[in-house]
């Protein structure tokens, strides 16, 4: 009797855990199968190499979306990664415990701001700034999206870089100090190379965040899906922005399937990034 009850209770908890497995499987299966359905309307080559995405003519080439996402993520990284590394170095090597706590709170608050608020600020601050700096167009585009994403990716990147720096053995620092190195020589010559796997993880996960971000980007990127943008300050789009803009109004099954396929592609890119992290940090673990 007691045993039966124990098994019953355990099976309840197990069910809760099993739902996680079922949910991730269902996510993959449903998004994958409905997305791949697009290839019953058009051949994959057309989809992956098409440079026009226009629902009015039922033309769905993914390149404008893919290019927008990759370009946005890369520009974001170029600014965001050095900034995050500097901030993490400041927190670990320069700041007093109190200042460090202040920085940690700052970074956490950046993480907790809703993305629609980032989008709103991008709309009232970044977009007009881009417009006035370049004197052309509306100011919406890949550059504006990247500037907003720089701050949205800071929490991920700073936190992981900080952990990586903090996890370094104390002897590394002592050795560098003992040789008479200045702090910067120690950081540049010893700490940064030693923390490289962790920093790489930070950058890749930050990139994942940039690629998956929807609302903040949708609000400042211009949502032009018809062509691959000619410059970073003209209207463009990204994969998530196109999905959230068009899926609610997609009436034709072809349009719908094409958008879901973009979502599946986004899922695959995210998984590829995570797998890269696994491989690099796994490799580092072996080496150490």
């Amino acid at each position, binding site marked *: 009797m007691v045993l039966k009850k*124990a098994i019953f209770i355990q099976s309840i908890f197990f069910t*809760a855990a099993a739902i996680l497995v079922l*949910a991730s499987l269902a*996510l993959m299966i449903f998004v994958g199968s409905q997305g791949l359905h697009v290839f019953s309307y058009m051949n994959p080559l057309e989809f992956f190499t098409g440079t026009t995405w226009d629902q009015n003519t039922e033309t769905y080439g993914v390149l404008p979306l893919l290019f927008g996402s990759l370009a946005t993520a890369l520009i974001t990284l170029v600014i965001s990664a050095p900034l995050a590394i500097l901030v993490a170095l400041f927190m670990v090597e320069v700041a007093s415990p109190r200042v460090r706590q202040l920085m940690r709170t700052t970074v956490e608050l*950046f993480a907790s701001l*809703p993305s629609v*608020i980032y989008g709103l600020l991008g709309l009232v601050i970044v977009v007009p700034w881009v417009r006035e700096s370049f004197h052309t167009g509306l100011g919406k585009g890949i550059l504006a999206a990247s500037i907003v994403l720089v701050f949205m990716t800071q929490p991920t990147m700073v936190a992981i870089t900080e952990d990586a720096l903090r996890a370094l053995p104390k002897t590394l620092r002592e050795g560098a100090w003992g040789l008479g190195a200045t702090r*910067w020589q120690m950081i540049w010559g010893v700490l940064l190379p030693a923390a490289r796997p962790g920093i790489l993880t930070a950058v890749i996960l930050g990139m994942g965040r940039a690629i998956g971000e929807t609302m903040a980007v949708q609000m400042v990127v211009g949502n032009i899906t018809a062509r691959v943008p000619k410059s970073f300050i003209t209207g463009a789009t990204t994969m998530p922005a196109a*999905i*959230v803009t068009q899926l609610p109004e997609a009436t034709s099954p072809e349009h719908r399937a094409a958008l879901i396929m973009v979502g599946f592609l986004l899922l695959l890119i995210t998984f590829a990034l995570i797998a890269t992290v696994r491989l690099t940090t796994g490799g580092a673990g072996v080496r150490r």
Partner: protein
Amino acid sequence: MSNTLLESSNQWIKSDLEDSKRTLQRHKLADRIATVVMSLAALLLVLVLLSVISILLYKGLSTISWKFLTSAGTFTEAGGGIGPQIFVSVYILFLSLLFTTPLGVGAAIYLAEYAKPGRLTTAIRFSTETLASVPSIVFGIFGAIVFLTIMGLGYSVLSGALTLTLLNLPLMVRIAEDAIRAVPNTYREASLALAGTQWETIRKIILPAALPGIITAIVLTGGRIIGETAPLILTTGTTISPNAQYSLNPFQTGETLAVHIWVLKIVGVPGLKDSQAVADGTAAVLLLIVLIVNIGAAYLSQRLQKNQRGAR
């Protein structure tokens, strides 16, 4: 002859000394510049955050009033509000937490107390991490396929709440599992030694001890639900039916505060009075909620740490 040799070698040593002095000075200068650059980077983040908060409050606080918070937006007169949107936000928050909390804590209990190393446990952990890395828009697509179309719920508060449940489960499981694992093993041993069953140990000893951590998880999840936008646009919709503004019917379409900001700023609501002021006011309300939630969560986890220190 030997004198000149000595002199020249002296000269050589001197210049060498000068050289290394200069090198040292250069390195010291580089060090100082690097310190300044690092500090400036940190300062930049603090300044951006402070200006973000003050800009949002400056633009929005003047709009906020009791009437703004409790009345509906209006097409005929100025001073419409966001009452229905607040209602929908709270409703989705409540519904979603109602699903997320038992599921998340249940899975956390299984992982922390029952699971044995093996393929099944690996699969559960792998799924949790996978779900945690999925972009939120993909959850929106999944919700649109499964809850809207296959289950036939359509754009509705329930579809949105279910979608957010899946989105937030990994976070809930992770924090709750950490909290349960942080309960000292001596507690378990003491309970089992007193002939408590495993269920009694979990119910009477472990859950109460892990409660602050579980509450932290609920609060943080709540904060995310309030700010979430993209998946809700695809599952709950962007409108509130005017004749069902405070309806508890979960099959109604809905519009949360965050979605409302997006609708006002990007989609536009033709004819709505003061729509830009309403958007700014909504943003300020959202910001205040998020700040309160995070300060609350920080306070809770601080208390949790103190408790744990006391237990040891």
